């Protein structure tokens, strides 16, 4: 049985059908005029050989081509792109089945940050009250390591609501280089979670190594097709409307291998996209459609995901403002566009402007988590632990987010109203009204034990005390202490023999032997 995620009944929609058509038509127009600049030669050639109007804009060291994509090419691609995408997992029970038309939401971690936030709880003594002590969390940023990535995958494995894992932190150990980064981030993640693993690729040269690693884990090429335990994200588009040289090449190569891939576009309203909603929507939709079209031209039937990471600019710095309300609006619009095309959507929520866990982080995260979830994206990423506009990751925050999603998932349960419920209710009301105390309390019990009553906030303190951080920290350590289902010893041994570059310290069996 695959994971259930949460099916959103009557998803929230901002745009009317007419507005969706307007965005669609305008996107089609800009795909042809002005078209896209491709810095990738092969992409330009693929479009050209399939009937797009391609002209060279610049030659020399950084050649680029203007690609004008005709509408029929896009429509053909939308037709051939799978409407259901399966993301496999080491544990088949963690498989995700995403249907473009079905607003079933899967909650996912990611994306890669450079900074890992450590936390500790020093004790402070109140100056004016002798003996009064409180513990206040202190957060210490530092560069992420492969050990952090293992811990993050480990905790995410045990977070109830988390359906899939995107690497949360960029591994920056001294012995990590561009040539071994991919194999290490894939192995560290796959070895510490049995959930689906999605990642970007640092070096195209490592693509076959990570694909072969996945094949060794599932048992072969056909098995990987049947159970794609890994998938890829590529930011092949640089806004506005440019195919990037290297990431587009990675995209093409992943499509050739038939593995699931996200076409990700992340324009910033105000700088790399128009500031108004219609503007950023027309552009991001055109950019994603361009990527989807390329995927189908490279390999018809490639399982492709409509990836949207739109954001509004901060007015004070022109940096990203993921905590802005408009960012959630753009994401919801993208969910609607993807559903219009019946392609599964990779959406964004939970990223906040706040630099550390706290009240601002909670408000920003919960707001976007709720509203974007309500719109029914299939793959909701960025949802756990990300802070400071996607710059840092906090394991403590990820644990806090899990509590948020438990509430959101409960909220999205369908209403229990049926003929039987009404009949039971009438009987109950008549019984209670006839009693002297007129209380319904005795009817709570069966409901309470059947799981039909939501649990209190997971980190509720006693009395008036606010112990949220301390309780979440306790929970985080509990999860870290839970066992991990690592890849079995024989497969691990094969991986270390056949896949070059994996750090020996990641072999848990050798490490145990050495102790």
């Amino acid at each position, binding site marked *: 049985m695959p994971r259930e995620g949460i099916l959103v009944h009557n998803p929230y929609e901002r745009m009317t059908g007419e507005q969706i058509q307007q965005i669609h038509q305008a996107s089609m127009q800009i795909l042809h005029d002005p078209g896209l600049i491709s810095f990738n030669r092969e992409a330009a050639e693929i479009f050209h050989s399939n009937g797009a109007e391609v002209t060279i804009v610049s030659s020399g060291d950084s050649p680029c081509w203007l690609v004008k994509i005709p509408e029929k090419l896009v429509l053909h691609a939308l037709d051939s792109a799978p409407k259901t995408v399966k993301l496999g997992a080491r544990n088949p029970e963690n498989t995700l089945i995403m249907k473009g038309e079905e607003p079933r939401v899967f909650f996912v971690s990611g994306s890669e940050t450079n900074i890992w936030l450590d936390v500790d709880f020093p004790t402070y003594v109140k100056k004016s009250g002798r003996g009064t002590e409180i513990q206040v969390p202190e957060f210490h940023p530092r560069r992420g390591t492969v050990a952090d990535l293992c811990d993050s995958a480990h905790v995410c494995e045990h977070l109830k609501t988390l359906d899939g894992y995107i690497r949360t932190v960029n591994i920056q150990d001294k012995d990590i280089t561009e040539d071994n980064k991919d194999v290490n981030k894939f192995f560290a993640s796959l070895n510490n979670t049995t959930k689906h693993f999605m990642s970007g690729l640092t070096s195209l040269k490592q693509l076959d190594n990570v694909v072969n690693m996945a094949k060794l884990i599932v048992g072969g090429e056909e098995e990987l097709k049947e159970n794609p335990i890994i998938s890829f994200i590529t930011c092949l588009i640089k806004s506005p409307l440019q195919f990037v040289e290297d990431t587009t090449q990675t995209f093409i190569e992943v499509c050739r291998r038939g593995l699931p891939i996200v076409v990700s576009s992340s324009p910033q309203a105000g700088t790399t996209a128009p500031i108004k909603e219609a503007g950023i929507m027309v552009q991001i939709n055109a950019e994603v459609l361009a990527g989807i079209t390329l995927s189908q031209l490279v390999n018809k039937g490639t399982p492709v995901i409509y990836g949207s990471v739109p954001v509004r600019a901060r007015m004070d710095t022109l940096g990203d403002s993921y905590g802005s309300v408009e960012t959630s609006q753009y994401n919801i619009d993208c969910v609607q566009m993807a559903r219009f095309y019946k392609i599964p959507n990779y959406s964004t929520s939970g990223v906040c402007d706040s630099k550390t866990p706290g009240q601002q982080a909670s408000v920003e995260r919960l707001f976007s988590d709720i509203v974007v979830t309500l719109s029914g994206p299939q793959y909701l990423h960025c949802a756990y632990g990300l802070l400071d506009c996607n710059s840092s990751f906090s394991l403590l925050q990820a644990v806090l987010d899990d509590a948020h999603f438990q509430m959101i998932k409960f909220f999205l349960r369908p209403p229990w109203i049926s003929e039987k419920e009404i009949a039971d209710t009438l009987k109950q009301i008549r019984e209670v009204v006839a009693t*002297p*105390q*007129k*209380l319904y*309390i*005795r009817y*709570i*019990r*069966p409901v*309470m*034990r059947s799981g039909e009553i939501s649990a209190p906030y997971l980190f509720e303190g006693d009395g008036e005390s606010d112990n949220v951080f301390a309780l979440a920290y306790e929970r985080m350590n509990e999860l870290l202490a839970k066992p991990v289902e690592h890849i079995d010893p024989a497969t691990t041994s094969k991986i270390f023999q056949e896949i070059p570059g994996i750090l020996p310290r990641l072999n848990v069996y050798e490490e145990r032997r050495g102790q």
Partner: protein
Amino acid sequence: MSEDIIASLKENVIQGRKTQDDEGIDEELSGTPGVVELTQSALDDNIPPETIITRGLTAGMQVVGEKFTTREYFIPDMLASAEAVGAAMDILKPILEASNIETKGKFAIATVKGDIHDIGKNIVSILLKGAGYEVNDLGTDVPTEKIVEVVREYKPDFLGLSALLTTTMVVMGEIIEALKENGLRDKVKVLIGGAAVSDEYAQEIGVDAYCVDGFHAIKALDAFQEAKA
């Protein structure tokens, strides 16, 4: 046989099953006798009421209390058990009276004049009855004169007053004064509760205890009993 009935009685108190129609927690008990039926069976088997109370009802409630403390049980569970014990006490009451066996004490409770809120008061009533007190619930919007009359005639050991509103909590002070005027204040321990009142207010008007909830009320009453002993 007697041992079986008492064990079953205790278990059904723990399960919070007042009658055979109640679900309880374990599904397999569905349709089997509940506390009411088992109490009657125990009496039919000539089991002494003291045994029924101490080894069946009270022993069961003790387990319920422990489960509540460890958060295995919640207030609805506690109330279901208390309600079951209360129903058993109703059956036992005539026999206890005929045998001159005393309950833990008589408790009169009312929501004061001008206030019709009674959820908290009703929960306290159920809990105290389940804890072995004889409860006389006077209802809501009860005039001060009636409360004074009940204290004089019914002679409760304890009087519980409830008010939700700041506008009606002042009536509690008037009741205390009325009890004093009628020479009854030292005849009864007065406890107050409700959203509007506080420990400070309890001290201000001169009552014997302020209770945050029903569990607090049981503790306060038990403390009075211990002090008396």
